[in-house]
């Protein structure tokens, strides 16, 4: 057994490199802009020098002797002919220049005040950060520089100006980077404390570059195109420019060229180095490729969502993962995920060979990688990986021994993480048990759609296979679906029966009476084999069938959706219906009680059974919906008609009142606003009433059953389909004029009546008139726009919240602290309760009191 020593990074110190450090740390000095010689071999002293690392397979690094992917790359450097200002530090250099004496280099604060100011500034720096401190330094200097003279040496100070991006002027005379550097050199180290710069190992003159660090080749790999041509990285291009200009500058200086030429070249060097660091400096034209494409240089690489930090460091790509379309399978367990065979043969699980599982693992290797269940690779104790093929199989079987690792195919029962984007809450990624199935899609129990917010209209999901025992244990214990039944957001269930699962049980408990045979058949399909609890009668009531699923000692009183009492005594459903209020997610109170009493595993299993029972009931009884389900009796039709007629008359009266000036304005409103509000109110009232009418109608229909059981649809939607669609509201008001004093050219100008302002009298069943359809389209479009605008807004809010709060945790002393140990709450939520362990955020004190009193 090998023992690995894990090194842990304790901290990371940030700082500025000194010129000496750069040259000391460099593996090579770059002297020529050429990259490759005629054979295509990297030139010594060029930008692709082999001492800077390797990017070609087969070559070895000249510094560390390692091959591609092993060698991390090494820095190089070039010596600049003339110093150049680092664009990222311009503002800081400017501050320092303005705040220090031009001749003696001291800070422009009198000696006696210096200490006081420093301690003040340190405090600000500590409390409000570096930027705030910078502002304060400027203020202090401005105040203390009364006579425009240095308090230390009495030299008169002149005004320094920064002409962006990087030119300094003193009273209209340009300060060259050499002069700037000379001034920075003069500043005594003690005075640097004022600016908040680190005291050890920092000099301001390092901010003016005399030597430029060259990033390793591994950081800027070139791509070989299909034609065999090499395409260099943007950074290499930029560095090439820098080296070239630098060379020319050297040559011109040595040749004693006129000052104008040297200045020009110097400026050019400054430009190239500036764009090397940041190609988005506002005042400079960005450096481009020959094709006109803008180069991506250092700053671009780091920042933004696609930048190094957010794309590669805070987010990483994984191996052992899969993605495909999802489809429902109500017959698999809540905890299961169906994985297609083709995936199971690629995704692998490493298992270490021991004395006890040697034979078991041998079998996988024997099967090979082309048949299921087999194995794809073995890993030898020395870490070498071997592919299992027909040729290597025998050899591998021979040597396979304790200590080897077999990467076998995914089999039933393996742990996997299942995820759907956007991963908005922790239930978006849960652990499932693998169930290998034929087909090409992932299968999941429709009851877990809700936490993932998934549907089957083409959604895709991701699967990850944890590779270590530790990871698997954590996944199983902390992330398994059944452990996530209760949402930490509100302390209620997020998983429950949906759609047919609810409708079926609703019908079963409401009206069905089955023969004993049918009942047994039903129960058997949903996985019940102990039928001793089924009453021994020829005709069995639906409630009795349902009760068979419940545990014997379970008692519960609650309410169903319509407010009737649901009573379960000793596992027998005595009264009430099983609908959304008891089985559904979020509400599902009966399931919630089961969860509490019998634990998560039992609750998950029962949920599966109940769901299956509902579906089985529907598939035997038959359940469908057609246009006939939207038929309403004549009585209802007339009633709704009267209701609407009255409402329309009312609005007409309101309009008439408005024109005759009889309408009383509501407090704080104009008369026109009042009219709008009153009309809206009366029309909405009429629609709600007709909705109630439609719900209450005697005639049974499937649509009503679904709405009543809570499986799908509500009173409003039923009303919209059967009776009246109602007023279309745009931004909370009736549809307003947008087309020359009228909503549509179909109407008269200034028509305030309800049909002209978006009231849809028709129902969806009877069909909409063209003008009504148009109003419907208007609100529909508005709703689409609303969603499109909202998503990024709420996404950003979420990102900010999670970034601000991600390191808050409960400590062992029950306080909530952030990463630096600052206390945010002394007791989480003021009472230390975990929301996901409570019922809607509270402990059920009343229930406990009742229980005790009843004893």
């Amino acid at each position: 057994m090998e023992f690995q020593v894990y090194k842990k990074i304790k901290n990371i110190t940030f700082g500025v490199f000194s010129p000496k450090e750069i040259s000391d740390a460099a593996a090579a000095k770059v002297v020529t802009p050429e990259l490759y010689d005629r054979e295509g071999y990297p030139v010594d002293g060029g930008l692709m020098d082999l001492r800077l690392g390797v990017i070609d397979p087969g070559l070895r690094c000249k510094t560390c002797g390692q091959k591609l992917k092993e060698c991390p790359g090494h820095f190089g450097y070039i010596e600049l002919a003339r110093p150049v200002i680092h664009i990222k530090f311009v503002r800081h250099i400017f501050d320092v220049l303005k705040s220090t004496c031009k001749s003696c280099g001291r800070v422009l604060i009198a000696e006696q005040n210096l200490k006081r100011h420093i301690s003040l500034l340190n405090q600000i720096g500590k409390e409000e950060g570096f930027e705030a401190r910078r502002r304060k330094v400027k203020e202090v200097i401005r105040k203390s520089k009364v006579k425009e003279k240095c308090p230390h040496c009495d030299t008169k100070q002149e005004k320094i100006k920064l002409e962006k991006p990087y030119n300094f002027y003193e009273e209209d005379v340009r300060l060259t980077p050499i002069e700037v550097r000379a001034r920075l050199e003069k500043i005594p180290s003690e005075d640097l404390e004022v600016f908040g710069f680190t005291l050890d190992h920092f000099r301001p003159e390092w901010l003016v570059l005399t030597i430029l660090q060259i990033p390793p080749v591994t950081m800027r790999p070139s791509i070989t195109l299909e034609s065999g041509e090499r395409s260099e990285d943007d950074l290499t291009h930029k560095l090439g420019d820098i080296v070239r200009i630098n060379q020319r500058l050297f040559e011109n200086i040595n040749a004693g060229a006129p000052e104008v030429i040297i200045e020009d070249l110097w400026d050019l060097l400054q430009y190239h180095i500036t764009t090397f660091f940041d190609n988005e400096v506002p005042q400079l034209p960005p450096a481009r490729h020959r094709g006109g494409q803008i180069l991506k240089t250092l700053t671009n690489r780091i920042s933004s969502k696609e930048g190094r930090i957010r794309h590669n460091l805070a987010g990483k790509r994984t191996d052992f993962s899969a993605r495909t379309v999802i489809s429902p399978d109500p017959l698999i367990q809540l905890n299961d995920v169906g994985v297609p065979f083709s995936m199971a043969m690629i995704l692998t699980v490493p298992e270490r060979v021991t004395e006890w599982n040697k034979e078991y693992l041998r079998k996988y290797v024997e099967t090979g990688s082309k048949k299921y269940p087999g194995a794809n690779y073995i890993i030898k104790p020395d870490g070498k990986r071997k592919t299992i093929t027909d040729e290597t199989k025998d050899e591998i079987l021979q040597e396979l021994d304790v200590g080897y690792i077999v990467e076998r195919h995914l089999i039933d029962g393996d742990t996997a993480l299942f995820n759907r984007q956007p991963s908005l809450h922790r239930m978006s990624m849960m652990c499932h048990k693998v169930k290998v199935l034929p087909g090409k899609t992932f299968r999941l129990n429709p009851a877990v759609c809700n936490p993932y917010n998934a549907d089957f209209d083409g959604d895709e999901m991701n699967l990850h296979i944890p590779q270590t025992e530790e990871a698997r244990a954590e996944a199983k214990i902390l992330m398994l679906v059944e452990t996530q039944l209760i949402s930490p957001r509100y302390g209620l269930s997020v998983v429950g029966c949906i759609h047919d699962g609810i409708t079926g049980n609703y019908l079963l408990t409401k009206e069905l009476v089955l023969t004993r045979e049918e009942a047994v058949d039903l129960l058997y399909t949903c996985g019940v084999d102990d039928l001793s609890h089924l009453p021994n009668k020829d005709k069995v009531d639906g409630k009795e069938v349902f009760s068979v699923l419940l545990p014997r000692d379970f008692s519960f009183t609650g309410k169903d959706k319509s407010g009737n009492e649901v009573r379960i005594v000793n596992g027998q459903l005595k009264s009430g219906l099983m609908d959304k209020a008891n089985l559904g997610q979020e509400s599902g109170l009966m399931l919630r009680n089961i969860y509490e009493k019998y634990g998560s595993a039992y609750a998950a299993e029962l949920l599966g059974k109940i769901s299956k029972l509902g579906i089985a009931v529907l598939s035997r009884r038959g359940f469908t919906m057609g246009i006939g389900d939207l038929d309403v009796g004549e009585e209802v039709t007339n009633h709704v008609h009267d209701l609407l007629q009255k409402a329309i008359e009312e609005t007409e009266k309101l309009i008439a009142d408005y024109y005759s000036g009889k309408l009383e304005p509501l407090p704080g409103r104009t008369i026109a606003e009042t009219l709008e509000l009153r009309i809206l109110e009366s029309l909405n009232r009429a629609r709600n009433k007709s909705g109630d009418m439609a719900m209450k109608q005697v005639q049974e229909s499937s649509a009503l059953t679904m709405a009543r059981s809570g499986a799908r649809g509500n009173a409003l939607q039923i009303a919209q389909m059967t009776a009246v669609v109602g007023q279309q509201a745009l931004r909370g008001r009736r549809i307003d004029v947008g087309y020359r004093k009228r909503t549509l050219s179909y109407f008269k100008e200034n028509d305030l009546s309800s049909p002209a302002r978006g009231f849809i009298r028709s129902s969806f069943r009877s069909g909409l008139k063209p003008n009504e359809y148009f109003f419907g389209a208007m609100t529909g479009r508005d709703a689409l726009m609303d969603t499109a605008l909202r998503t990024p807004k709420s996404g950003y809010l979420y990102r900010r919240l999670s970034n601000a709060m991600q390191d808050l945790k409960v400590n062992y002393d029950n306080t909530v602290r952030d990463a630096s140990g600052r206390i945010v709450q002394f007791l989480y939520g003021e009472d230390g309760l975990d929301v996901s362990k409570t019922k809607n955020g509270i402990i059920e004190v009343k229930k406990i009191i009742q229980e005790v009193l009843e004893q």
Partner: protein
Amino acid sequence: MRKEQEELLQEYEGQLPLSVLEEISSNIPSSITKTQLQKIIEKVKEAYQISKINPGECVGLVSAESIGEPGTQMTLNTFHFAGVSEMNVTTGLPRIIEIFDAQKSIKTPLMEIFLKPPHNQLEQIKKFAAMIKETQFGELVSEYALNIFDQKLKIVLNKVLCEEYSIDIKELAKLVRAKIKGFNVQGTDDTLEFISKGKPEEIKQLYDLKEKIRTIKVKGIKGIMQVLPVKRDEEYIVLTSGTNLKEILELPEVDTQRTISNDINEIHEVLGIEAARQAIIDEVYRVIEAQGLNIDIRHIMLVADVMCTNGEVKGVTRYGVVSEKASVLARASFETPVKHLINAALEGEIDYLTSVVENVMINQPVPLGTGLPGLIIKMK
């Protein structure tokens, strides 16, 4: 019996949170025996112990998720009409963003002013409402007359309005005189004349004057733009658009305990940080409830606490809460990474890798949950 019960409950202080104890004492019947109570408390205690949060739980992220996830379900509609007679209020997502940003000026500042008993009846409340409403000079003017040659501005006042607001015109002239410099003010009956004292310079000066005069507060309380007396349960209250908590609370009729504003920063200035924290919780919770969403109050509390730990209200932005983080890499991973890296280099900052993102970056276990405890195993 009551005393005995109280004593028993007191014994458990410290073992059970106060809110739970209160719930017990308010729900038990008075006929309860001591043993029964003891049993109840013990049972509640057991339930409490089971429901307690585990150390290492990443409560911050859970809260962020709990608020962020339903964010997509909130409406973007800025205005909503709660009932007919109420005022426009920013609700939904924009309001939540406004609160969490700790924006200095909010879109719809609002106050609910409760009055002490004798004043909270219909007649008095109307008078009070009229009294606090800010009246600006501009509202009383019926005509402006600019005389450019004489550098004169003549203003004709609306007499009817003045009487309605019970404003004395002489008083008004005095008030204006005090506020205006560089002009002689002459007032007769219903007109006011402003004559430039200095040399006639530019017309602009007169225009500026006109603009300035318009916004002079004549009466009422500054910032209270609209007032609306409303019936709440048994009493009448005043809803205002525009806030001025400080001056309103100083009025003797006002019930200072219940009167609130919806401007978090104002509350912080007037009532202090704890009030601001409570205001954040209340305001956010109100919006969430109005949207029909269910988010546990603990999550909102935590956000409010994060925003207020420093003693001032900090927004959940790169300038607020995020800038307070100790770790350079954590700040850099949020927004403006280069700026943070540059400043860190100059300052010589050290990142001790105590929070989440830094450890994700360098592939180390995160110090939360199962990554928190360190296990040392003795090798035999």
